[in-house]
């Protein structure tokens, strides 16, 4: 067990997979000598060389299409989109090509690729570099979506994503890049589609993923002081989704608070809430399922405004206390 950063864990996962499998390679903007906009790939050019760490022109559609085509013909590309917001420029290649190639060709091809992209606010980069975009991607059958919250999960889930035979969108939480956490040694692969109950509890379920996990755990700690036992669940993988874990936690506690950074309207919280209300868990609910999410505004620049639009630990705590009444 080593204490390493989230960024290091991602780099380690890629490096280990590249040593294991010659078909794995990286492409993206400024991932070579620069080391990636957030430094994730720093040092990889030196180890693997320019053939496998491919710096590209600023051409998101071509980068994504190149990954799709390489994947269709036997390679396992990992591509980096510098900010998840820029996926818009590659949307056709991701949504109409990567996600649909297998189905529309009757299963003749597979597209084993990973699209890595950092998401989230908190860096003062304003409206076009700070969004949490998972809801756009989650509505597309054929894609998988992962959003890890710890270094250990980032490493284990990225390894699983690289080995997966489908296109996986791996949403890195940019404010977590420098956070350290324990990561087990060795080749630990965490299967996609399994939620993690970070903290078991009996009175209320707090269901979240990504950067908000840290705040949910802090809130649970405070709730414990009030004698409220909160179960905190990290979904980790959003598609495939561990519906069984969600439903059984809701049945156990009867009170559910869903927390995410992305905008509320049309956000993934609605899907989680519907998963509970569509299931037998509905009959066990003691209170309405509650969502706490980012405000429905573009991300503002000013640091107070920016901090004010995502759920805070205090807001999570207040909502949980209210629900647990």
């Amino acid at each position: 067990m080593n204490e390493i950063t989230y960024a290091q864990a991602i780099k380690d996962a890629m490096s280990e997979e590249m040593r294991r499998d010659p078909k794995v390679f990286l492409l993206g903007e400024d991932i070579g000598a620069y080391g990636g906009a957030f430094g994730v790939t720093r040092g990889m050019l030196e180890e693997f060389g320019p053939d496998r760490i491919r710096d590209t022109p600023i051409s998101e559609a071509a980068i994504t299409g190149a990954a799709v085509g390489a994947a269709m013909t036997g390679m396992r590309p990992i591509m980096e989109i510098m900010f998840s917001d820029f996926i818009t420029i590659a949307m056709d290649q991701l949504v109409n090509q990567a996600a649909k190639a297998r189905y529309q060709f009757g299963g003749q091809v597979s597209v084993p690729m990973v699209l890595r992209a950092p998401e989230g606010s908190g860096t003062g980069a304003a409206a076009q570099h700070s969004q949490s975009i998972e809801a756009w991607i989650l509505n597309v059958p054929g894609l998988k979506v992962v959003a890890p919250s710890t270094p250990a999960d980032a490493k284990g889930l990225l390894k699983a994503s690289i080995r997966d035979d489908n296109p996986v969108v791996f949403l890195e939480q940019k404010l977590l890049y420098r956070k350290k956490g324990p990561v087990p040694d060795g080749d630990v692969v965490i299967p996609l589609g399994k939620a993690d109950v970070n903290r078991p509890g009996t009175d209320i379920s707090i269901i979240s993923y990504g950067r908000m996990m840290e705040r949910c755990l802090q809130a649970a700690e405070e709730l414990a002081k009030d004698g409220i036992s909160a179960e905190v669940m990290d979904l980790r993988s959003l598609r495939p989704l561990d519906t069984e874990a969600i439903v059984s936690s809701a049945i156990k506690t009867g009170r559910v608070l869903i927390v995410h950074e992305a905008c509320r309207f049309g956000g993934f919280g609605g899907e989680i809430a519907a998963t509970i209300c569509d299931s037998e868990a509905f009959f066990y609910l003691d209170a309405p399922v509650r969502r706490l999410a980012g405000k429905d505004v573009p991300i503002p620049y000013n640091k107070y405004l920016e901090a004010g639009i995502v759920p805070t630990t205090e807001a999570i705590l207040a909502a949980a206390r209210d629900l647990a009444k």
Partner: protein
Amino acid sequence: MTIPREKLEDMYRKMALTRAFEETAMRLFSLGKVHGTAHFCIGEEATGTGVCAGIQPQDLIYATHRGHGQSISKGMNVDRMMAEFLGKATGVCKGKGGCMHIADVSAGNLGANGIVGGGIPIAVGAALGTVMQKIDRVVVCFFGDGASNEGTFHESINLASVWKLPIVFACVNNCYGMSMKVTASMNITDIALRASSYGIPGMTVDGNDVLAVYAAAQEAREHASRNGPVLLVLNTYRIMGHSKSDSGAYRTKEEVEEWKRKDPLKRFVSTLLQQGLFTEAEIAGIDAEAAAVIEHAVAYAESSPEPSLDTVEQDVYA
């Protein structure tokens, strides 16, 4: 250059098959037997056939939404192609793609595309995979004049050029992007000029002359396999409307008639006859054989079962 007789015969057979496929597909439409839409390549047969004849069996193609001729010329089984057109379970894509998404990986056809310009970056990726796996192979990406106005065209050619990938960008200029005439959609008359922006060679060929297309494709392939990408522009004409919904209000009958006189099949036949390489009876024999092959394909497709609804969730994920 002397072309072996078998090669010439194969090229004419592919063109005749394509024409017969398209005419039969249109007849099936008028009989109400087709659920979707289709984009016919009548008048453009020399482009798909000439290019596919000029490359090697191991080479890969990415086709367009108007890609029946490209697919047939790459050696696709027409029974399974017709079955896909009718949406049957025996279709090459199990009835899930339709004729806009025909693919036959075993024949080196990695798929037609319903998004204009959507296949171009993917073809670049296949060329990248080719280089990284050290495979002796070239990728041919078909697209149209309309696609050359898409961003993906420019991004992809630039990327392929920077990486010197073994790819031929085959632009089938059929004079129209749906109703938009090519002269109105760009301010140049020769699309191959666009190659110079990316530091690669551009070639322009009479796309109704199958022998000229064949020779150009050989040259382009040779260049691509050694020195990187080539833009090969094939000037031709779309005789039929864009799709089944097209009333033709944007062009004159005279213009269409003028191009009908440049029919690539008639032109090839007249060359073959003039040079004494084939007799009229031999040509008629190939035409009859093509008609029979397509008739068989229709019988196969019509007698094939509809896909079961149980299969509808298959192949979303690997």
